């Protein structure tokens, strides 16, 4: 089966200025630095990693909200890396994005009816039965009261606003949705509501998700496969059960072990791997394996050779000395 989305060696670098005084280019932030993966129809690929590792950038570049610096992006087998913004428009109805911040991503001056109807307007589509009917059906589908059609975003709670964002993104029944931390800003009890909604929508419409989050438990719950990113690169990509049961990459292992578990007895007994130091700057990442500055298994080779993603069982792992 043709994958919905396939990226090969995708890179996105941002040129940066050193500081406010020196207005010259000081280098590149290698936000995404050569990642490759596929997402099958109906599949959810989870993407995890620490803040600044390039998750958002990856998600936005894949649907071409950012121009890629290098690599290839295929959508349903077609190369969309180079196509013009106007040609991109016809693809837009098939790929959508849900943003992290349910407070900032909705225009405060538009009614939610208008916000949800925006994709119809942009694509110049009149759904059957009219826009208003379609919007109200959508609102009902995501658990909003359709009578609130004429209200403004500030009248809604965080969870409800995220529902509005979801309604907008599924309006055109896209085949692929990038969900960028859709539940990170929400309380656990509300978070569970939204995760369940996304689950249901996927069953109903069969769309694929790139689900970005830093919360490993949320990702585990919702994903079929998971990609672990570090400094713009994929460290490990594996089916969810394999990744969580037997992580092969030292970073994956450390990450999993750092997540506190809501279970006091487990917490009292388990061993924890404590990583030392902070994330290096993505401006000048370490040579060789990017994780070598914090890895407890690092050898000389790790500081010279960059490991490639290699198959171990069902997992792909970028490490010279995998677990």
């Amino acid at each position, binding site marked *: 089966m043709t994958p919905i989305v396939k990226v090969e060696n995708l890179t996105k670098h941002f040129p940066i200025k*050193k*500081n*406010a*005084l*020196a207005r010259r280019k000081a280098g590149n932030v290698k936000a995404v630095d050569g990642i490759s993966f596929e997402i099958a129809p109906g599949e959810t690929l989870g993407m995890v990693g620490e803040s600044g590792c390039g998750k958002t950038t990856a998600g936005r570049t894949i649907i071409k909200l950012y121009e890629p610096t290098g690599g290839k992006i295929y959508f349903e087998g077609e190369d969309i890396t180079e196509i013009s913004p106007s040609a991109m428009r016809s693809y837009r109805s098939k790929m959508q994005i849900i943003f992290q911040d349910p407070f900032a991503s909705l225009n405060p001056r538009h009614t939610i009816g208008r916000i949800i109807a925006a994709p119809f307007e942009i694509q110049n589509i009149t759904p059957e039965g009219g826009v208003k009917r379609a919007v109200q059906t959508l609102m009902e589908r995501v658990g909003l009261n359709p009578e609130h059609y004429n209200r403004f975003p500030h009248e809604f709670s965080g969870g409800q606003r995220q529902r509005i964002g979801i309604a907008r993104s599924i309006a055109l029944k896209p085949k692929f949705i990038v969900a960028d931390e859709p539940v990170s800003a929400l309380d656990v009890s509300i978070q569970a509501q939204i995760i369940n909604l996304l689950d249901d929508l996927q069953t109903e419409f069969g769309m694929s998700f790139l689900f970005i989050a830093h919360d490993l438990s949320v990702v585990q719950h919702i994903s079929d496969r998971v990609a672990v990113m570090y400094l713009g690169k994929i460290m490990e990509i594996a089916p969810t059960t394999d990744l969580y049961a037997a992580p092969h990459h030292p970073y994956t292992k450390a990450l999993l072990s750092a997540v506190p578990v809501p279970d006091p007895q487990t917490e009292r007994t388990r061993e924890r791997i404590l990583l030392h130091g902070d994330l290096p700057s993505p401006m000048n990442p370490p040579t060789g394996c990017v994780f070598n500055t914090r890895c407890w298994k690092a050898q000389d080779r790790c500081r010279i050779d960059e490991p490639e993603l290699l198959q171990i069982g069902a997992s792909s792992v970028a490490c010279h000395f995998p677990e």
Partner: protein
Amino acid sequence: MINYISRRLLYAAVILLLVSMAVYAIFQFLPFDPAALTCGKNCRPNLIAANRVRLGFDKPLWEQYWLFLSGIFVGRDYGVGSAAFTCPAPSLGYSFRQNACVTDLIQQALPVTLSLAIGALILWLIVGIGLGILAARFKDSPIDTGSTIFVLIGTSLPTFVTGLLLLIYLTLKNNIIPLNFDAYVSVFDNPSKFFMYFLLPWITLAFAFSAIYTRYTRSAVIETSGEDYIRTAWAKGLKSNVVLRKHTLRAALAPLTTLAGLDFAGLLGGAILTETIFNLPGLGRMSLKAVNDFDLPVVLATTLLAATIVVVMNLIVDLLYAVLDPRVRVG
């Protein structure tokens, strides 16, 4: 930092060059014959022609500009033979209306404007910031209400109204501050006379500015007081005046340097209204008179001077800001 300063200086020079070209060009395209403006009613064609040569208006435009520019650095000679004379460097041209080198005229006017601007600046910073802090600290108290009224009046009354009211009530009606027809004296020669001379103009100018600064300071202090790092300062157990002075004011007032620097630069260009009301022989009145008289070299020079002051002040303000805010200083 050195690198940065030299680069900024270079930019400043380029900007000034461009400004001077633009100003020069604008005056060339005005529909007047500059030579005809040199002699007023009793102009005869031969006098105009002679003046044209004397002042260099016969030369091509680019050469005139070049002479003007080089005059700034090496001085400039006018006329030939017995009628020849020199405006020494830095020469900004020769006023045929006043028969004087422009630089000399500016030298007389600048101290007046400088005294006016510096005095007013000090006054409005003290009043504006002080009142702003009080208003913020005693928010919603009668002090705050009073300051709000002050701000309203200060920002809505035009300078000339304030000036005239002050003149009428403090001087003419009640004679609190005696009317001063004396000429300008330097602060170094006679301080008390100097202060009497400038008191009303200072108050007039500072009035409007203090109002703006009061409003700014009040809101900046209130906003900064809500910052997380101020909460941290309280949590350390600091005394309230330390929290205010060291933590709140430093952050709230740093941006004020920019505002104050630029306002000050604007005034140095000449506080036209104030100088006119109080009959102060400063740059503002000089420019106004020059415009009325079509005294083009003077207009050109004062425009250029004002631009220079703004550019230099900008530089100073940016450097000052870098000293105040480590985020700018250390990259």
